């Protein structure tokens, strides 16, 4: 579904990504792990066309998408839940959701709205409330719901567990797994390696803009290096 080939991105003299390649096969959950500043968010920004590439290719469903404008990439079936949710706090819950389906017709998105409210009943209760008034967990649900409104083929999640209580993290992970079982391919970017590897089929570990490790969830969980670096305190994830 997604193929990243030798991706290089720099901010000035800083090499954020220095020749990274990975792939997200159709129907899978792939985790991209790493500490703060390892280049995870840069990868998401590059894929969604927000960061300019220095080199490399990005293939979405077999077609090159590097250099295309962000909105056009999204319309090819990509949805992004950005780091920190990035909700429109000046809009209501429902308005946030409707914007997620901006380029679709009402007949097409109506079932998705119903499905989002079914998945997240709390959002329906608060549909006319300002998105800024939601709790952290509810905001994450809304960010997820907003992304689902475009009925994406590939979902990019940037740190969905960030700032959430462990119980809520579990709930979010369950929903991600459920979405995956319904056929959505997922790239999960996480600092919280233990949580991400619980549901991921395969994982990559980024360190200073390069891939340091890769393997199945179980392999990575058992890997001594990863254990030492990221898996100190279980589901809560490491403090940085």
């Amino acid at each position, binding site marked *: 579904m997604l193929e990243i080939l030798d991706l290089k991105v720099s901010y000035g003299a800083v090499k954020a990504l220095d020749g990274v390649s990975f792939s997200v096969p159709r129907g899978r959950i792939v985790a991209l792990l790493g500490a703060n500043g390892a280049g995870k968010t840069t990868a998401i920004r590059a894929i969604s066309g927000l960061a300019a590439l220095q080199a490399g290719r990005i293939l979405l469903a077999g077609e090159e998408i590097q250099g295309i404008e*962000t909105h056009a990439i999204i319309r090819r079936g990509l949805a992004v839940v950005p780091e920190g949710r990035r909700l429109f706090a000046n*809009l209501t819950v429902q308005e946030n959701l409707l914007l997620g389906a*901006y380029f679709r017709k009402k007949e097409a998105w109506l079932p998705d709205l119903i499905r989002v409210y079914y998945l997240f009943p709390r959002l329906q209760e608060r549909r006319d409330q300002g998105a800024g008034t939601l709790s952290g967990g509810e905001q994450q649900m809304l960010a997820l719901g907003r992304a689902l409104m475009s009925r994406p083929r590939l979902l990019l999640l940037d740190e969905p567990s960030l700032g959430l209580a462990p119980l809520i993290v579990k709930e979010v992970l369950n929903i991600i797994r459920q979405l995956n079982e319904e056929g959505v391919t997922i790239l999960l970017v996480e600092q919280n390696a233990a949580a991400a590897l619980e549901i991921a089929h395969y994982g990559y570990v980024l360190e200073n803009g390069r891939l340091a490790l890769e393997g199945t969830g179980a392999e990575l969980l058992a890997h001594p290096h990863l254990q030492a670096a990221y898996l100190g305190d279980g589901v809560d994830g490491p403090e940085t």
Partner: protein
Amino acid sequence: MDAITLIQQLINGLSLGSLYALIAIGYTMVYGILRLINSAHGDLLMVAAYIGIMGVGLFSWPWPVAFGLAVGLTGFLGVLLERGAYRPLRRAPRISLLISAIAASFLLENLALVLAGGRAKPFPAPAVFTGVFQWGGLFIPRLSFFIPAVTAVLLALLFFTVYRTQIGRAMRAISWSLETTSLLGINVNRVIAFTFLVGSLLAGAGGLLWAMKYPQVNPFMGILPGLKAFIAAVLGGIGNLTGAVVGGLLLGLLEILIVALFPAWSGYRDALAFGLLIILLLVRPTGLMGETLGEEKL
């Protein structure tokens, strides 16, 4: 001041305030989205007025055609301005954008000066809009009813668009975060162009109404109403649509009533408005209905 004079002045204030509101909307919408004081906005009034003169006076078209064309072309010009003067600078420091807006304003004024000459031209107001209502001791120009009525209709359309349609939601979303809006597959350039279109259409309508109210059309006629509308937008809380309307009405009423109460001060009318701006910026820079800043703007 007796009751009749008071009513008369209130209606005058309402009609002037409506015009300010109509123009202030354009400032506030563009500011909300790009954080730009579009100083060329006032000059759009002048452009609309000249096109109106051309249509009604020069070519003797029926006024609905001439006015429709004037408003439409003014809207189109607003889009062109964004395309030519602002979009290429979207990633530049905000001060460059402001300078570009000032340049655009001078360009429009001097273009008009070259094309139409510096001498003021009378605006040939169609008969529908002229005349006076007489009712008891009350004398009210018909235009003073038309202006608030037209404004009310246009504002209703505007608020419906902004609060009830997808493109309106996208406009509000962009004012919060442009990048996130693009991440939803929304072509932000198109939404921004639409914002300029709407603001400039309103300015076009405002320009025609203004030219009928003060029928001296010259290349610099847009400056003062533009500045006043800017004050109105700041007064209401720039970036806030309702604020722009409230600010416009308030400023219009204030100007008229002060002059009505203290006729000797009438020469200081503009000084009063600008004095208000200074005090406002010192005391309450976010205006009456100050907006909450979007995450990218803090």
